[in-house]
């Protein structure tokens, strides 16, 4: 980092900002009861919560990719009346308090909800199930993927796609061999962001899915509950969550440059691969 290009006060403010984020995490680490750390984080409840969190977050991320990629493509590559409005609606979970999301989901998929009452008559019960956790997580995480992918799609532009089409490539071929490889780094980072958001999901899960060890009590819910009786356990589990988040983000940063150089499936990888570098 060369700070010469920036006014010093910008750098100073940036340092204050960074300290503001890092200091509370450091303060939390200082409170950890190290001799009890291993027993605390390997207790049955903690392991069940961590496994459930990882399982549901992966499922939610898969849902986000399955529906978020088409959503981002439609928002970035088509034009229809009310597109901007639809876009802001889709991004709404980003700014909604999660508990509001939970209430909304309850009135949709709950036993007396809009869709839930129909599902219940078919014998499908969403409430208090792991499915409810995944739905809550996907609901809050989807905008992260859509936002990062849509931005990338706009930045790379349609030039290569147009060239591909004039050379006779069909829509599916253009999508598969030009568009998606171009935005792969953004897709990966969007998916990682979604995963991280899903991992930290608390409010919507608590409101919509309930809390039962092994089926709906994810790590954030376990932390919230442990705080009631054993603050040391809550702090220890919080550190586990921070470490998982840091590892995930770190892995994503490693994957991104590799992804942008990945020539797999692209006929002219070098030139377009440079473009996503600007997407940041």
């Amino acid at each position, binding site marked *: *980092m*060369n*700070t010469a290009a920036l006014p*010093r*006060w910008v*750098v*100073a*403010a*940036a*340092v*204050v*900002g*960074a*300290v503001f*984020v*890092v200091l509370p*995490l450091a303060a939390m680490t200082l409170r950890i009861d190290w001799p009890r750390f291993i027993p605390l984080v390997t207790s049955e409840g903690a392991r069940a919560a961590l496994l459930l969190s990882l399982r549901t977050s992966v499922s939610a991320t898969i849902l986000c990719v399955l529906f978020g990629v088409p959503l981002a493509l439609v928002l970035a590559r088509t034009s229809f009346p009310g597109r901007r409005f639809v876009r802001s609606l889709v991004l709404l979970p980003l700014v909604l308090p999660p508990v509001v999301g939970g209430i909304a989901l*309850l009135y949709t998929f*709950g*036993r*007396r909800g809009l869709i839930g009452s129909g599902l219940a008559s078919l014998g499908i019960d969403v*409430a*208090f199930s792991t499915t409810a956790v995944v739905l809550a997580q996907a609901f809050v995480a989807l905008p992260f993927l859509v936002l990062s992918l849509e931005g990338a799609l706009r930045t790379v532009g349609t030039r290569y796609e147009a060239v591909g089409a004039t050379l006779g490539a069909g829509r599916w071929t253009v999508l598969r061999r030009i568009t998606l490889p171009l935005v792969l780094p953004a897709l990966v980072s969007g998916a*990682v*962001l979604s995963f*991280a958001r899903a991992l930290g999901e608390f409010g919507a899960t*608590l*409101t919509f*899915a*309930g*809390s*039962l*060890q092994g089926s*709906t*009590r994810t790590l954030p*819910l376990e932390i*919230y*509950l*442990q*705080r*009631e*009786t*054993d*603050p040391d356990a809550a702090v220890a589990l919080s550190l586990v969550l921070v470490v998982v*988040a*840091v590892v995930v*983000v*770190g892995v*994503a*940063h490693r994957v991104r440059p590799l992804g942008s150089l990945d020539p797999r499936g692209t006929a002219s990888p070098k030139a377009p691969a440079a473009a996503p570098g600007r997407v940041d």
Partner: protein
Amino acid sequence: MIIARLAPGVRSHGRDARRGRPGRTPGRQLCAVPAAVAFIVLLLTGCGGARDATGAGGSAAADGAEIDGSITVFAAASLTSTFTDLAGRFEDGHPGTEVRLTFAGSSDLVTQIIEGAPADVFASADTRTMQRVSDEGLLAGTAVDFATNTLQLAVPPDNPAGISSLADAARPGVKTVVCAEQVPCGAAAVAVADAEGVDLDPVSEESSVTDVLGKVTSGEADAGLVYGTDVRAAGGSVLGIDLAEAGAGATTYPITALAESPEAATAQAFVDFVTGPEGRAVLTAAGFGAP
């Protein structure tokens, strides 16, 4: 994401500053950071200033045992409606006083008090959490028990699962929600279920009684174990079913003035008011039992 990106920034800034020391003017750069931190600290202490001001006035008032000034009361979530009512009555009876109320789960409140939150009075939903405050030496005197509460089974008004007892709530296929054992209402639920010899298999163990009630009022759950006062406060949105062994899970509510209170006289006056006849009447009307 943010952490990973910013953390390297901190380090590289440090390196640059060291590297720049001989030639350039790192002094200004290094000063800027403490200055900014100091600015934020000033902001923080600025917020605390108002509190100190009332504190200074309060100690003078305490000497003359005069009851005025502003106190902050931390009370268990289940006391929300009764304490809102009582605070209003107290202010009416003692002109010049202001009672600020904070409601949350008792354990949350204890954590905040131990971490230094400015509370003058603490009313807990169980003796166990009060003991934690006492262990920290934060009580002004000894805590006084002022109310009791017992569990009821709350069901949606149409009672879809046809529940009339705790044993019904334990039937397979019935969605019953309880508090987790870590919170007072969950401990009470276990005690009642044990006393009735019922083996509950809940679909969810919530961290607060409000969450249990929410699952019942929304119709997601067929039944939930909540306090009788919650059922009464929920009005017609749930039906309350009495439990045969409710007494086994009775919880006792203690109240106390806190040692660090700058308004000791007013804090104690509020405690006396809650434990006195008017407080008793309001609590009884809300469904609380006598201690």
